[in-house]
């Protein structure tokens, strides 16, 4: 049954509908694999075997009667432990919420439930999602399936590990400054940072209400599009969400990209790149040329100031959200997270408000100077090859901030501007770890980004590469 877990989400859902496999069989296999791998990779916070099997049995019984809940009928998934489910514990990766029972169910989970998912558990994450390496001193670090000595990326660490290891077919992450795109790129997956307002954040733990977005991680681009079809849409409980119609995000998958203008950034995204990353990016641009795209050099505006604005926004939100606990329960944070939260004391009310006011002008400038010249910008996710766990010190001191700032440098401007960006596997660096790139587009251009990402996925043949697991 392990072979069935290697299917794409799209293929597994079809196999279920065709009754080639049952939900109980798939769910049982996923849970067994999760239990087998977890001592090595620490992806799960909790495995909900009993509830998952009850749900899987119900799916099988309904299908036997010809009833289909939706496109995910009976498919086992798992999600970052910050998506609330009413009556169940959501740790948010923290000691503070180790026993906290959620009073509501997240909108994203409601939609996936309605589509027929079987959630088998909740997944490891950076404490309160505040950090990009995926490490968690409270829960223990999740480990990279490609090599457990290396970071997974974060904060959606368990989401990336559980999907890359072939345990589940997809997982929810959240992206405030790269927390979907980084772990996706580092673990060799597709990960969508959605347009701010495309997916409801209701019932998802806030890190920065100004910047938080919900997005899926999957093994294939088509799977990702399938999940966004389900997740996207307006929700009165999240006033940021847009009333704009939700297109079929899978419609463009497989369509030609000939004639599309791919922007290659000159400035900011090409700064501080190490040679291994440059080699992968050169191969990506060459592939798009081969596919008939026009690769155009596009000069970047001042994104250092945009990145700084994004930091100030994050700090202003974090200091408010964590203010009371930092006063009364500071010792219950891990030192790493507490140190990072303390840095938020550097933001003033005026800086925070001005950082909000600057967002519109910054987005208008980015669209007029960059996205008017190309259909999408293709840029690296990380400026250097994936580091080892032992290479990153995230204790909150000046050295850790330098490392953290560089890991998120190519990510945060996209969040600040509220744009969509799809992380796509680009290749491998000589250390054997995946190296991803991001396709950035205009607000609500997710369908185009999927089309562009899928074209490279097919051209590169990278889907054939799987990590060699320890168990």
């Amino acid at each position, binding site marked *: 049954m392990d072979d069935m877990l290697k299917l794409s989400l799209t293929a597994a859902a079809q196999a279920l509908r065709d009754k080639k496999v049952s939900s109980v069989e798939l769910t049982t296999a996923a849970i067994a694999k999760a239990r087998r791998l977890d001592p090595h990779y620490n992806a799960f916070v909790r495995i909900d075997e009993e509830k998952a099997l009850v749900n899987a049995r119900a799916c099988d019984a309904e299908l036997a009667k010809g009833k289909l809940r939706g496109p995910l009928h009976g498919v086992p998934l798992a999600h970052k432990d910050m998506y609330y489910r009413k009556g169940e514990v959501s740790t948010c990766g923290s000691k503070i919420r180790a026993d906290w029972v959620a009073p509501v169910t997240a909108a994203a989970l409601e939609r996936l439930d309605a589509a027929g998912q079987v959630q088998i558990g909740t997944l490891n994450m950076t404490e309160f999602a505040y950090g990009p390496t995926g490490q968690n001193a409270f829960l223990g670090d999740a480990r990279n399936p490609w090599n457990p000595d290396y970071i997974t990326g974060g904060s959606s660490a368990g989401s990336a590990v559980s999907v890359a290891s072939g345990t589940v077919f997809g997982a929810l992450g959240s992206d405030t400054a790269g927390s979907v795109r980084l772990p996706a790129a580092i673990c060799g997956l597709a990960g969508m940072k959605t347009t701010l307002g495309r997916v409801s954040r209701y019932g998802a733990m806030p890190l920065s209400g100004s910047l938080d977005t919900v997005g899926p991680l999957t093994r294939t681009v088509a799977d990702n599009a399938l999940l966004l079809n389900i997740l996207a849409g307006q929700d009165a409980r999240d006033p940021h969400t847009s009333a704009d119609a939700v297109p079929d995000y899978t419609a463009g998958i497989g369509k030609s990209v000939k004639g599309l203008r791919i922007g290659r950034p000159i400035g900011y995204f090409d700064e501080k790149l190490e040679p291994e990353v440059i080699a992968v990016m050169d191969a990506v641009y060459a592939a798009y040329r081969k596919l008939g795209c026009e690769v155009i050099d596009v000069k970047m505006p001042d994104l250092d100031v945009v990145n700084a604005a994004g930091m*100030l926004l994050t700090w202003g939100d974090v*200091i408010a959200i964590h203010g009371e606990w930092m006063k009364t329960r500071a010792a219950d944070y891990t030192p790493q997270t507490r140190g990072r939260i303390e840095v938020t*004391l*550097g933001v003033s009310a005026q800086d925070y408000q*001005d950082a909000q006011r600057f967002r519109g002008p*910054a987005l208008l400038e980015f669209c007029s100077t960059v996205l008017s010249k190309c259909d999408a910008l293709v840029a690296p996710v990380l400026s250097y090859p994936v580091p080892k766990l032992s290479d990153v010190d995230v204790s909150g001191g000046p050295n850790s901030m330098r490392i953290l700032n560089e890991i998120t440098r190519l990510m945060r401007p996209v969040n600040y501007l*509220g744009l969509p960006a799809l992380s796509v596997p680009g290749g491998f660096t000589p250390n054997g770890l995946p190296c991803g790139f991001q396709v950035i587009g205009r607000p609500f251009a997710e*369908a185009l980004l999927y089309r562009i990402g899928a074209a490279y996925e097919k051209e590169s043949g990278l889907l054939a590469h799987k990590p060699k697991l320890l168990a």
Partner: protein
Amino acid sequence: MSKLTPEDVLSTARRVGWAITAERAQQIAGTAGPAVEKFAAARAHLDFDHDTLTLQAAREITKVDGSKDGR
């Protein structure tokens, strides 16, 4: 604010009730200061009439119809 000092950090810490040492305040000022200073350049793009919801307006101006190939 265009330059962040340890005194600024301590003042904020006192106001929000967090326990921070003077040494840590100095460290935080050194860590957060570059972003604060860099952001000061953004103020040249702001005028009296910019409110805090400029992003939503800009999103509506710049968005695409996702169902029509997203360009």
